[in-house]
């Protein structure tokens, strides 16, 4: 005769409606500030593209078997994805958690930390998939041949962006103050984006550095983008796998870290 006191609907561990609600909040906010976000996410990598394209491009015609504009025009995707995912992951999450207390309000609703982290990373990832492709389109204007494979570039950006957004969220739960992000940017992100085969091939680096590059998710992103644009190989599956592993690992770290910060 034990009827449950209340008819509670079964709520699954990660509910699409919870993730959707948090993404909806981001989307509503984005309608206010999309101009500035879009500007910095697109202009910065484009400047890198032009600087390296014209600067190096005048010195070297061919790099690793590619025309330099083809080399850098595809490599730059990874830089753009990194900028538009790791930074919002770090700064945006930190501000919402500590200054605005947004996450306290979200977690008081029927939303759990893993849904919150998934939603924030997913939203950033979707954006960076688009932002990542823009500098490549700029490169098309400078001689990069358009190809159907370019349609794969936004999904590659989303996958890479998810990992770096989650990385940013994880780091935002570790740093004691917003100023500490400077250390992360200088010591982690800058080496990652310079030694990813974006602007110069990693073949010229010492052996240990080449091995280290295999641990760099951006290297796998760059290789995958070049594969998509110039022709995929079986080895590209390995790059997909590396990016998936990176995304999953960062998501796990981010959820664990943020939960310990939000749930006392």
């Amino acid at each position, binding site marked *: 005769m034990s009827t449950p006191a209340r008819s509670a609907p079964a709520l699954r561990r990660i509910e699409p409606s919870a993730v959707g609600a948090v993404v909806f909040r981001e989307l509503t906010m984005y309608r206010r500030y999309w101009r500035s976000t879009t500007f910095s996410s697109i202009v910065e990598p484009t400047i890198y593209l032009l600087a390296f394209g014209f600067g190096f491009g005048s010195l070297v015609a061919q790099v690793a078997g590619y025309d330099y504009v083809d080399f850098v025009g595809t490599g730059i995707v990874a830089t753009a994805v990194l900028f538009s995912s790791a930074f919002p992951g770090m700064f945006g999450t930190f501000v919402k958690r500590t200054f605005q207390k947004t996450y306290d309000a979200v977690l*008081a609703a*029927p939303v759990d930390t893993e849904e919150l982290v998934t939603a924030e990373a997913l939203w950033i990832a979707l954006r960076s998939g688009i932002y990542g492709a823009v500098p490549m389109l700029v490169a098309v204007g400078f001689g990069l041949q358009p190809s159907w494979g370019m349609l794969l570039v936004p999904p590659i950006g989303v996958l890479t962006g998810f990992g770096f957004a989650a990385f940013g969220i994880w780091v935002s739960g570790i740093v004691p103050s917003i100023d500490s992000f400077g250390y992360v940017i200088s010591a982690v992100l800058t080496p990652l984006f310079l030694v990813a085969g974006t602007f110069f091939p990693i073949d010229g680096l010492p052996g240990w550095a080449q091995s280290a590059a295999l641990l760099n998710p951006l290297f796998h992103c760059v290789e995958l983008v070049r594969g998509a644009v110039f022709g995929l190989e079986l080895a590209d599956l390995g790059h997909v796998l590396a990016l998936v592993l990176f995304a999953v690992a960062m998501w796990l770290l981010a959820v664990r870290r943020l939960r310990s910060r939000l749930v006392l």
Partner: protein
Amino acid sequence: MSSQRTHEVAVDLGLSLRGVVKTFGALRAVDGLDLDVRSGTCLGLLGANGAGKSTTMRLLTAQAIADEGEIEVLGLPVPAQSKQARAQMGVVPQQDNLDIELTVRQNLEVFARLYRVPRADRAAAVGRALQVAQLTGRADTKVDDLSGGMRRRLLIARALVHRPRLVLLDEPTVGLDPQVRQELWALVDALRSEGVTVLMSTHYIEEAERLADDVAIMHAGRVIARGTPTALVTEHVGRRVLEVYGPPARLLEVEQVGREAGLPTRRTGPAVAVLRAETSYSVADLLPDAVARPANLEDVFVLLTGEKVE
């Protein structure tokens, strides 16, 4: 069979905490807390800063996890089924965390989704919340441009967008002007009359007296007294208080008079209050300079906790 029925009647509680302990390092913020709120009533949780009120609120939404004890919210065990419980409760935080960049309506729309209001009902739910907040005419104003009182009304309406059965209010009127505070009281009173269970923490005595069916006085992480405001006053400080204002020497004399008459006293700034004055015929004669007033909840609070409140 019959015992089970009794049990079911007994569990008609909006929320209950049993032997709950929550420590932060060496600090025992909640220290053996027993508290329950019957469905459809408003409980005022009264305590000074640091008494453990906010931690208690966080425990109820599983935004803090208890070290010991059992918590049930709307009949659901917390934290195990906290998500189901949260779907049916609204939370008004002490610190305003509205999205100031968004309009009033957008803030409500976001929360209608977070609280799973079905798509077909969302517009109506937002419209109703706008009415509750009396902000229908300001629906498209950015929150940043609202007055403090409007913001607080919106913060409360945001917690009601999904018609919760239980509402947690953490210091709902802290830092507001008296007239704004009274507006909000009307809002909370309306909730109670609709049968919503309310747990409201406050350190304003008057707020608890005006709004709460029952008051629990919290001190050092546990409830030290519980009852209706009237019952608490009668039980702990009697009906009549004699208050004497004077220089420190006179105050010491008054305290002596109280002690000799066997009556409790308490200091209130420049005065001494002699409590339970109605039980002694002689004490009024011994204190010709005293002003008589009815005993109130503040007398209880100070007597029991030794702490000052507003």
